[in-house]
């Protein structure tokens, strides 16, 4: 027991330390609220992040709350995961490698009745980590330049409360409330002529968003699913300090100090995803999703950049030998997938697309549905051109999907 506590403490410590670091630091994170995360629950990262039509039987499917309607009675599930990512950033003249570790999620789900279940999940929504050193920019209305150095940290978190309910044998509907909260810090240093100006801004965000999902079993091997995410306004406030120093005059001047103010709210678009899951010969499964985010209809302020509508195509196969075979190896699931994302950013008239391939294994733990999921994906984001950067990344996702059979026998005196 002592050992177990040590291990648990260790896991919690590692999760939180990597969470607090929020290490994603893509140069593209200067836009909006930063780079957005994909969900990495269960074996989803191995099948190209598809799965809107997958049920929450073996893991918590965060892509569709309706999946909870298919959760087995008397089970409960726990899912925790993290990623290790190595990214190489490359532009016209340079290349640089960076490693980082990200907390992915922590979630659990439990049935309420035989036909319905609830899940709670905490996961990062976006990371605003970036760094800019001594970058030269033109001064408006002149041929002079100024130098900008900046660092961004922080990001938004997403806390989901989801409920799924099965109507009859084939149809399940689900509702999920996402609470988005968090803050970003942006420190900028401007060297303009003989002066240095620092602007430190801490922005706080909070908002709520609704998801509506449905899954329908056409037959025992074929499921279709859809999920709608409502547009939402994320309230933003900021606390800002502005300080200037003039070298000629040896003068420090506090222009403002910790001034609270409202800033432009951030708008999440209407998003929908549709997909299906088909099983062949009882051991090969194909999952395909299409997702669209209508950023153009959201009234995004210039502050966050101008966004385009985003399309995502996701597809994955998973394979497992016959369930009945007793060999451990035969119960291991192998998966592979593709993901193509047009992105919502357009910089210098070029879209920042993201494409990735992935493979993964799900290692069952004892004779339950619990698995240790390990997946690897290789992806590219952006491209090399003037003012753009290509990111090549290797991502290793590891998560534990724990399944427990819940016997309500225990009594407390």
């Amino acid at each position, binding site marked *: 027991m002592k050992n177990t506590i040590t291990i*648990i403490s260790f896991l919690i410590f590692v999760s939180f330390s990597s969470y607090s670091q929020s290490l994603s630091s893509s140069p593209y994170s200067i*836009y909006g609220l930063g780079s957005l995360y994909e969900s990495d629950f269960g074996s989803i990262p191995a099948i190209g992040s598809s799965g809107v039509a997958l049920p929450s039987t073996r893991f918590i499917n965060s892509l569709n709350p309706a999946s909870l309607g298919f959760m087995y009675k008397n089970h409960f599930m726990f899912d925790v995961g993290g990623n290790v990512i190595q990214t190489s950033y490359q532009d016209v003249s340079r290349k640089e490698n960076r*490693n980082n570790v990200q907390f992915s999620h922590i979630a*659990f789900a*439990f049935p309420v009745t035989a036909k319905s279940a609830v899940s709670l999940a905490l996961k990062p929504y976006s990371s605003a980590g970036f760094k800019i050193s001594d970058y030269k920019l033109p001064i408006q209305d002149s041929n002079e330049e100024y130098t900008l150095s900046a660092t961004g940290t922080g990001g938004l978190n997403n806390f989901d409360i989801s409920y799924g309910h099965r109507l009859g044998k084939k149809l399940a509907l689900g509702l999920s409330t996402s609470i988005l909260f968090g803050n970003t810090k942006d420190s900028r240093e401007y060297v303009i002529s*003989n002066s240095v100006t620092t602007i430190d801004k801490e922005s706080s965000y909070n908002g709520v968003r609704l998801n509506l999902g449905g899954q329908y079993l056409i037959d025992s091997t074929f499921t279709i699913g859809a999920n709608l995410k409502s547009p939402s306004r994320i309230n933003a406030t900021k606390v800002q300090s502005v300080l200037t120093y003039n070298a000629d005059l040896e003068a*420090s001047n506090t222009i403002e100090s910790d001034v609270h103010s409202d800033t432009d709210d951030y708008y999440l678009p209407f998003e929908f995803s549709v997909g299906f899951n088909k099983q062949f010969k009882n051991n090969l499964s194909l999952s395909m999703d299409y997702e669209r985010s209508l950023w153009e209809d959201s009234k995004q302020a210039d502050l966050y*950049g101008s966004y385009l509508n985003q399309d995502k195509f996701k597809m994955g196969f998973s394979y497992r030998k016959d369930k009945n075979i007793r060999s451990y190896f035969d119960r291991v699931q192998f998966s592979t997938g593709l993901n193509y994302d047009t992105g919502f950013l357009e910089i210098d008239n070029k879209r920042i697309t993201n494409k990735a391939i992935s493979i993964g294994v799900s290692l069952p733990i004892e004779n339950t549905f619990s698995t240790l999921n390990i997946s690897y994906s290789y992806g590219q984001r952006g491209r090399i051109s003037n003012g753009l950067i290509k990111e090549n990344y290797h991502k290793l996702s590891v998560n534990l999907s724990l399944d*427990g059979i819940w016997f*309500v026998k225990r009594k407390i005196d």
Partner: protein
Amino acid sequence: MQNPWLYMLLGFVDTALLYLFKIFFMYRLFIVLFFGIILTSCDSDVDAGEFVVGSDNLSLNNKVILIDTATVEVSTINFDSLVTSGQSRILLGNYDDPIFGKVSSDSYFQLSSSSYNLQTTSSDTEGANYVFDSIRMVLLPDKYYYGDTTKVQSISIHRLLQKVKPNSEDDNFYNNSNLNYDAVSLGSASFTPKRLRQDSVFVKMDNVFGDALFQKLKKREIVTTDEFVEYFKGLVIKSTSANTSAVLGFGTTSLLQLYYSKKVTDSKTSILKEFTIDDISKQFNRISLDRTGTIIKDLPGTTGRLSSNLTENKSFIQSGTGLACRIDFPSIKELKYITEKGAIVDAQLLIRPVNNTYSKSYPLADSLNVYVADQLNRLSGTLNSASGSPIYAVLNKAQDEFDENIGYSIPLGTFMQNEMVKKTDSKSALILTIPNISKGVNRLVLGNQKNTGNKVKLKIYYISY
């Protein structure tokens, strides 16, 4: 205690612990490896910040703007009284400046001696045998000169008819102070100043005057400084030549030398008695400018200003005579409205001397004093850095003398920001003078915003936040 939520939680914790325990023993190698990678990766994440995308977006949040179209009003003002006493310089000469008019400077001072006894030793009882020889003024140059020094200078020395005592309430004499003097010259000299950069000027003085002074001392009618000053109130040295073209400086160590000798035998021993400017507050220069017929003839009084728009787009500074350049920024408050919130982080004023108004004879000062003044030209002090040291307008020494970039630059970041955000309606102006304002006659002609070729230029760096 039939709370299903509590049961659920306990069940969850129970099972989670059980499984984690089992997993650890089944996959301990893998788990240790995995977290090992995580921990080492944490350390290797170094972002040098060299990769930047979206420069258009970066400049969106905080706009950096250079404003070089703000109005700068340049005018000339006239300080009618500058303190010229106590400056440790006898300023003499006159010149006819083609732009400014006729400049001339006369110097007034009181002399005294450490002792009024003619005897050289206490045992010397033969005072009756002393005879007067000669008296002369010795002027020691202090290397200041302004103007064309190749022309002959003539000076004339006169005896003051009133004591060197200020008329004003304070103890100062001003560039326009005046004392009565005897029209009869006690001595005069003509010399070409160029040579006198090393050499002293000796002016032989009237023997009648010298002998009378000598007799007073000999008869011991004068034994104290008070008695001496009562008898001999002081001197004024005037510049007399009509066609000279330079003003020269002499040290206040200049002195009056009285030679006498002891007539005992045929051999004559020459003895010297010296009278010096002991109190420099009793020495001042009267510096005047006759602007008749020049473009600055209409200069208003101390509190007024003459716009450079009326004076060929030029502004004028002259030491000694009190002309100074005033600079106003009438539209500075409007910069507040460029963006919702903005600050001036730096500003530079480059004010240029007008071509062909300076030369070797009329050189440019290396720097100018910068004062802050109100609407009535009342100075609140020098423009200072944050640490309190004065800010100067410093000359850019361009290699080519006629380079259009030659000019005086003043860092104005803090001044401009303060002016912009100032709550009251009052606006401050800057006043430029040459550092030797009280003891020289250097002058400078500066261009305004409409001056072709020598425009004053104001650059304001502004950031929105």
